[in-house]
């Protein structure tokens, strides 16, 4: 039974891809060089690995929610702040827990806390999300 405190199954990227960062930067014409130029990363004092785009980190959270809720069509609202960087090669895990469950016109939806953390435990993205629940017993609850 899904309810307040229920944990959303975590979703992990074993190693964030620098090549994917370049692809996304090209697709959205993002001129910010820390996503694709190591020299710029060094000049910014951020180390020597490209920095993942914030929206891609958001996409990881959506992936977690979609897998749990039965598809991306059930992700209704996501509201996040970016609080730390994710670098190429990092392991990141999307996590979440249910804050409340609402019933409206026969449709249940869950308000959730969501966050993305690096392998060293640093929280990089934090926020809230709303997902439609497809049906009692249809989605996994890990805690």
């Amino acid at each position: 039974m899904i309810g307040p405190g229920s944990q959303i199954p975590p979703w992990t990227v074993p190693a964030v891809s620098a090549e994917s960062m370049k692809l996304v930067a090209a697709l959205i014409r993002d001129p910010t060089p820390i996503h694709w130029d190591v020299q710029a990363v060094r000049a910014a004092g951020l180390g020597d690995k490209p920095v993942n785009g914030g929206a891609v980190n958001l996409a990881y959270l959506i992936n977690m929610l979609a897998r749990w809720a039965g598809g991306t069509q059930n992700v209704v609202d996501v509201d996040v702040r970016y609080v730390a960087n994710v670098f190429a090669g990092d392991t990141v895990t999307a996590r979440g827990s249910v804050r409340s469950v609402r019933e409206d016109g026969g449709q249940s939806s869950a308000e959730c806390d969501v966050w993305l953390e690096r392998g060293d435990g640093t929280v990089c993205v934090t926020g809230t999300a709303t997902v439609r629940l497809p049906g009692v017993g249809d989605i996994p609850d890990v805690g």
Partner: protein
Amino acid sequence: MSGGPDGTGAPSVDEIRASALGRPFPGGSFVIEPWEAFLVADAVAADEISQHSVHPIQNYFAALGAAGVTLDEMFGWCLSAASEGPMLGSTRLELSRPLEVGVRYVVEGSFLSVERKRGARAGVFDIAIFELTIRDLDAQLVARTECSLIFPRKAAV
């Protein structure tokens, strides 16, 4: 870039507001091609990577692409540039219904606010919030994105 009234070289928040607020982005439209759907889903490590379904993050990516201004130009509207280290501070995605491959959508957007902040570690920075809306050709809302951009203002005191 114009300098601030204090002679520091950083624009004042009033200058930034005058530049960024009160004028909508030119706007435009987009169609997500099958290859785009596949490449974006692959780039964000989605569970479903195909040419037939669209990842929700495309609501941001595609709207940005059809806003009629590039990110670089948006930085310029805020009297900054990519070389000054602007960052995405927050994103809210409100999803009314899924995007579909091969369907044309219309995008509108604008900056909503500009605020100057001062942090103990970060120093002076500006937060500019913009929104992008996606509608279908019948003017039905598909998605709304609200983002904040953070602009470090090292020259400001």
